């Protein structure tokens, strides 16, 4: 039987793998060829941090995480309320219940790393350092918003913060993130691209295409699946033949792990391992964070598919309350501090809502100004009621 060439052999034989142009990122261990099973780097709920010897977290860091989580919580609650007050229109998906995942993931990134997300991204924008006022203004559709009021809840975009978008098409962000990682690879530097998505997204074709190419071309991308147990109303077990989603990495020989998404430090550690591997070795990674979604799929979903018991159980799983309890038990967070932080972030969120409310609506003449970054031939700039064909 003829020997199958290993992938690296095939590549050195002259296959034009685009990532070859990449700057080298330090030492790499040769990967085994086909036939040698590669054990997953980590398994189960913990991701032992071998790559980065982490210094123990200071109380300040931990309380800072809590503060960010609470900011996301209060922001989302305020957004839900603004929706009922008809200040926010269109779709609106909240990160309620996913705060530890959001904050833990963002804590593992450098400000210069890139982020792609799905439509459930308000918290990510906040934790990536974008002001609550600009995020809220975007939800209100005001010109002071992150996307100048033209994006709305699902399409937060801020090149400066390197948030390259929330995406409303399930899975739409995944191939784009692989593309961005390819660009990083080409240009050089040691930026990393993180791509967040939901559990339901792992059944989308683009997910598999993107992970495959990222592994083939050694792209510095970290794919993060936030497993909140549901794609709209469909349970993971009903949509995924392998409901342990992190195992999908094995199909691409991609290192992968699952982490408890309600534990902000565990998420940060697992993400840091993934991010730093992508940074130093230019290898992609698949991380699954298991974290509940406390409310319906979006603000208009009564979530009747959940029983009363399920809803009650969710309250116990609330990561914000859990984190507060843990910090209190560790003697790091006094009840006074907790109340003070709550008052501060609540005030910040209220100010953001007031800012948004006072901001102007975007002018219709600017509708197409941000559609494309570069000129595109044949671009249609048709407003509603404009004729389809101009004579």
């Amino acid at each position: 039987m003829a020997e199958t060439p290993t992938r690296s052999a095939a590549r050195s034989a002259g296959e034009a793998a685009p990532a070859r142009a990449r700057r080298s990122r330090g030492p790499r261990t040769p990967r085994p060829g086909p036939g040698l099973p590669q054990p997953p780097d980590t398994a189960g709920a913990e991701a032992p941090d071998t790559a980065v010897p982490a210094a123990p977290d200071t109380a300040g860091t931990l309380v800072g995480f809590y503060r960010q989580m609470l900011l996301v919580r209060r922001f989302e609650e305020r957004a839900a309320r603004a929706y009922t007050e008809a200040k926010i229109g269109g779709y609106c998906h909240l990160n309620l219940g996913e705060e530890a995942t959001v904050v833990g993931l963002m804590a593992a990134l450098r400000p210069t790393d890139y982020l792609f997300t799905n439509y459930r991204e308000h918290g990510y924008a906040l934790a990536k350092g974008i002001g609550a006022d600009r995020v809220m203004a975007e939800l209100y559709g005001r010109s002071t918003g992150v996307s100048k009021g033209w994006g709305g809840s699902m399409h937060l975009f801020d090149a400066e913060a390197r948030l390259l978008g929330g995406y409303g098409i399930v899975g739409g962000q995944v191939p784009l993130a692989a593309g961005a990682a390819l660009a990083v690879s080409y240009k050089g530097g040691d930026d990393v691209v993180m791509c967040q998505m939901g559990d339901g997204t792992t059944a989308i074709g683009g997910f598999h295409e993107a992970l495959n190419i990222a592994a083939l071309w050694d792209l510095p991308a970290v794919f993060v699946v936030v497993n909140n147990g549901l794609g709209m109303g469909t349970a993971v077990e009903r949509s995924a033949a392998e409901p342990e989603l992190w195992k999908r990495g094995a199909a691409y020989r991609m290192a992968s792990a699952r982490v408890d998404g309600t534990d902000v430090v565990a998420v940060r550690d697992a993400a840091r391992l993934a991010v730093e591997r992508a940074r130093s070795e230019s290898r992609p990674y698949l991380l699954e964070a298991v974290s509940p979604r406390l409310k319906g799929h979006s603000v208009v979903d009564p979530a009747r598919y959940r029983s009363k018991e399920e809803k009650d159980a969710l309250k116990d799983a609330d990561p914000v309350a859990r984190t507060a309890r843990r910090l209190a038990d560790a003697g790091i967070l006094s009840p006074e501090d907790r109340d003070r932080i709550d008052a501060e972030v609540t005030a910040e969120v209220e100010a953001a809502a007031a800012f948004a409310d006072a901001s102007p609506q975007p002018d219709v003449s600017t509708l197409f100004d941000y559609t494309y970054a570069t000129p595109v031939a044949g671009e249609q700039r048709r407003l509603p009621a404009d004729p389809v064909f101009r004579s």
Partner: protein
Amino acid sequence: MTEILMPRLSDTMEEGVVSSWQKRPGDEVRAGDVLCDIETDKAVMEYEAYEDGVLDRILVAEGETAAIGAPIAVIAPAGGVPAPDPAPAPARAPVPEPESEPESAPLAVRRPDGARPPSSPLARRLARDHGVDLAALTGSGPGGRIVRADIEAAIRAEASAVPAAPEPVRTRAQDDPDVEAVPLNRFRKVAARRLTESKRDAPHFYLNREVDAGALAAFRATLNEVLAPARVSVNDLVVKAVATALREHPEVNVSYTEDALLFHGRVHVGVAVAVPDGLVVPVVRDADRKSVSRIGAETRELAVRAREGRLGAQDMSGGTFSVSNLGMFGVGSFSAVINPPEAAILAVGAVRDEPVVRDGRVVPGKRMAVTLSVDHRACDGATAAKFLARLAELLENPLLIVA
């Protein structure tokens, strides 16, 4: 004092109905507590409080409608001074100020002559369900809006107006204090329509057969030993046997239409499930290709969801044959009404201990009666009898069911 306003809970909602209050005046309220359920044009949503306090007054009573942004209740600060004027909660919603009408309300609100009067979404639905003509009503709600109470009054009025001639002895719930009129629920309405249609349009004929169920009962016991803690029921075995027999007898897996007989390429077996307020028939898809334990697991899951009212339309549609089993209630035999557009239904009775004659001797044995109801337009007696014979053979030799 904080006013609680009618929330907008969907992009297309203009007004909502308070379908129930979860808190009563005087109740303590904490941020995040459910205050009430609001019925929108799309769904019933829970509405939570944003602040702590005490529910001081309810302004919109259950069943009443309010426009988005209209006050529906008042919350007083927790432990604060009692409201200066502790007005008792009005039994009915006071008429809100005219300016609280939705600005974008449909033209009907202004009601030019002949136009449809304003009405709440709930009222419209009730009217549709009961065939009440909205245009004929005068609304008692704010601004002449037709509300639930108006529709209910119209339904009652119509009921008592119908002449009692055809059934002389029947009394109206209206006048007879011993009779309670319970409005038909969704299931009963759909079932009533479809079953009437079935009995009226499909000429039913019935084939009875007694099956020797000794081997079946023993087989089930063995299966349950090896599968424990999972369990299969006699009905799961029957469903699988039916599916297998249908696969072999495609002429029974059919639907009659005016133009053609439709032969179904797949075998989807509906299983009748009693729910507290009616009957539903969730469908086990491709039952011929599933194992008995899988059929059992699916049936139980569907039954649980049926009882919790969580079955979707897709769970109950597409069946090509149904099975109805009343054996667990001790029913010996019965015949069932075909579930259209299917061509047949199997009614399954209890497994009974009976004396049976085996090799010329009377010995203790087990029997089960099955009755096949068949749509004669789709299928003839001999065809159905052959199917039933094969089914009996499978049930009497249960290894064939799983073979």
